[in-house]
């Protein structure tokens, strides 16, 4: 057997370097007027969100998070309509989940589970968003500039005065608006980096409330069996315009250009699509 060479580094002699990864430290917040700024680089989500909550409790109206990358739960569970969180970087999983009032604006992309079971407020994402966007969303606005993933707008629902609105500027994959029970879901296909059609298959499958607007057309195989497709008429476009105006304002886009292409409207054809599926014993 060849003897151990000098190259060998005895384990104990090695000086420990810091481990790559999140820092388990509470970050500093720089407060200026009602604005708190936090450098999130390498900060573990728990500490980051703790400081965000503390800044808001101390009266900050706006929290700016710099160098965010993958930190989870930003804006999750936060309340208060006047509050604003700015995210610079890539927001992590479950951003704005259960959110009830604040505005979260992401200058970058967001990952999976944005706006999950959100009650009120606004989410604005200047990049893409991942899968299961706005799951069970009950109110507020979600505006995504780019592409979105699978199962977007899944089980969006309206309740009394709450009507959720989601507008996605790029393309979407399968199961867009699955189980949708209320609200407005819009897909524009304008800011896309993926190849293929505007949207995948199983659009609105299980849909039993709300309305989907697609900028352009879809083929019948793409749609769930519970939805009917119609060209959007004058009245539909009149309803859509204020939503798109708000969206365009967020991203500096021209609403007339957005509306320059015919829209397709998808609505459920029955509130009880499975009435005939069961036999009672």
């Amino acid at each position, binding site marked *: *057997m*060849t*003897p*151990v*060479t000098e*190259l*060998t*580094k*005895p*384990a*104990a002699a*090695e*000086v*420990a*370097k810091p*481990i*790559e*990864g*999140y820092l388990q430290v509470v970050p500093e917040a720089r407060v200026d007027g009602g604005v708190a700024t936090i450098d999130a680089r390498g900060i573990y*989500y728990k500490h980051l969100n703790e400081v965000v909550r503390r800044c808001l409790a101390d009266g900050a109206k706006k929290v700016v998070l710099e160098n965010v*990358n*993958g*930190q*989870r739960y930003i804006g999750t569970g936060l309340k208060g309509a006047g509050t604003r969180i700015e995210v610079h*970087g*890539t927001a*992590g*999983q479950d951003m704005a989940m259960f959110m009830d009032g604040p505005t979260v604006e992401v200058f*970058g*992309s967001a*990952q*999976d589970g944005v706006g999950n079971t959100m009650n009120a407020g606004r989410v604005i994402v200047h990049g*893409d968003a*991942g*899968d299961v966007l706005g799951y069970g969303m009950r109110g507020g606005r979600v505006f995504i500039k780019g*592409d979105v*993933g*699978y199962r977007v707008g899944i089980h969006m629902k309206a309740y009394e005065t709450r009507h959720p609105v989601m507008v996605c500027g790029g393309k979407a*994959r*399968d*199961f867009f608006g699955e189980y949708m029970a209320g609200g407005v879901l819009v897909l524009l296909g304008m800011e896309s*980096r*993926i190849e*293929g059609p505007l949207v*995948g*298959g199983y659009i609105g499958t299980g849909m039993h409330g709300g309305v989907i607007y697609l900028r352009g057309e879809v083929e019948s*195989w793409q749609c769930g069996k519970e939805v009917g497709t119609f060209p959007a008429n004058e009245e539909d476009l009149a309803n859509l315009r204020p939503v798109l105006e708000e969206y365009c304002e967020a991203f500096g886009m021209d609403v007339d250009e957005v509306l320059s292409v015919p829209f397709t409207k998808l609505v459920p054809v029955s509130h009880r699509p499975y009435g005939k599926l069961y036999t009672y014993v």
Partner: protein
Amino acid sequence: MRYEPLLERMPTTRIPSFTDREGVSRGERPRYAEEAPFKIHGGCGLMGICDESGSLMSGQVPIRAMAVQRDRGNGLGGGFAGYGIYPEFPDHFCFHMMYHDLRAKEDAEALFDRYFQVDLAEPMPTRPVKGIADAPLLWRYFLNPDPHKLDEAEMTPEDFVVHSVMLINSTVDGAFVASSGKNMGAFKGVGFPEEIGHYYLLEEYEGHTWVGHNRFPTNTPGWWGGAHPFTLLDWSIVHNGEISSYGINSRYLEQFGYKCTLGTDTEVAAYLFDLMLRRHQLPIELACKALASPLWSEIDRMPEPEAEVMRSLRAVYGPGMLNGPFAIVLGFNGGMVALNDRIKLRPLVAARQGSIVMVASEESAIREVLDAPDRVWAPKAGEPVIATVAGNGSPVHSDLHLSADEVSCAVTGMPETCETVEVS
């Protein structure tokens, strides 16, 4: 006695517990096996990066990519595999070994001495890391089969190496081969991946391709061998998710002689790749389509003859289709393949920056590593992301002629899988 040349001296009795030279009991000597004879459930995070130009990247890259995905695991398993990391020994097989105790090391080394020309043997460089405990003795060996033994065995070097892996994993108690390919190595253990990477001083290595894994098992892992990636020669597999079709996938593989004894989806995926790529010579694109089949409605919309290919692929390989949520990365000396399930139940994000292709469970991992990606996208369900390093070939081991049970034995070292290795 099929393996005669390799079996002149093998330990014939297993020692249930062992006290090392210093008289410290190290407890039961583990065999390489997952922790239970039943299906193991779990979730995970993963990454893969490949520079198609063959340029090398520091091991810090995969560590950083996994560190931002820390919460996808639970600290019970992390690991990496790097390719192109041993340019000084490009033509040597490199065995990364895990030993429970010195006796296991002696037994394995006796085997190396007898059957291989070992040109360098050294402990794996490591550093102490808080939270990393119970590390086995970690050694690596740069070696090639002894030419005489190779002649005697009438095997290709690849066959010879896998047979030796099989032999060590199944008969040398307390010894386990973590990887055995050329110019590559696996670095894995029980801990969070960034801790494991740090422990192994991964930043001192440079590779053109890296895969990483963060494990969230629902059971308590026994020892370091159980962490991912899984390897065989230069193949490494990392996997996220749970394959709900495990039951039929494993029975399907058994029909071809593979024996699924670890109860993990990763093992099943490894054998399916071996079956389809090496033994059935399917192009990698089609193997991916068999593993994550398009829906029948999509196939029906395809033009002929593509539809006919897909129809046959699905009808024939249906029992091998991985059904349920998964994302998987297969690394090899020629690059990597990333794939996720047919209805995208597990995340996978891909990016390209110049000649670098990267995949990860979360976009943040990509942003952490690539400063200016040309393109970041979420691959469509069942659409493989394939990266190939120029001139390094495909993942098909044409020099490997092993049967399925031999492959299973080499991967697992479980006694049930190694019936053909008999010692008189």
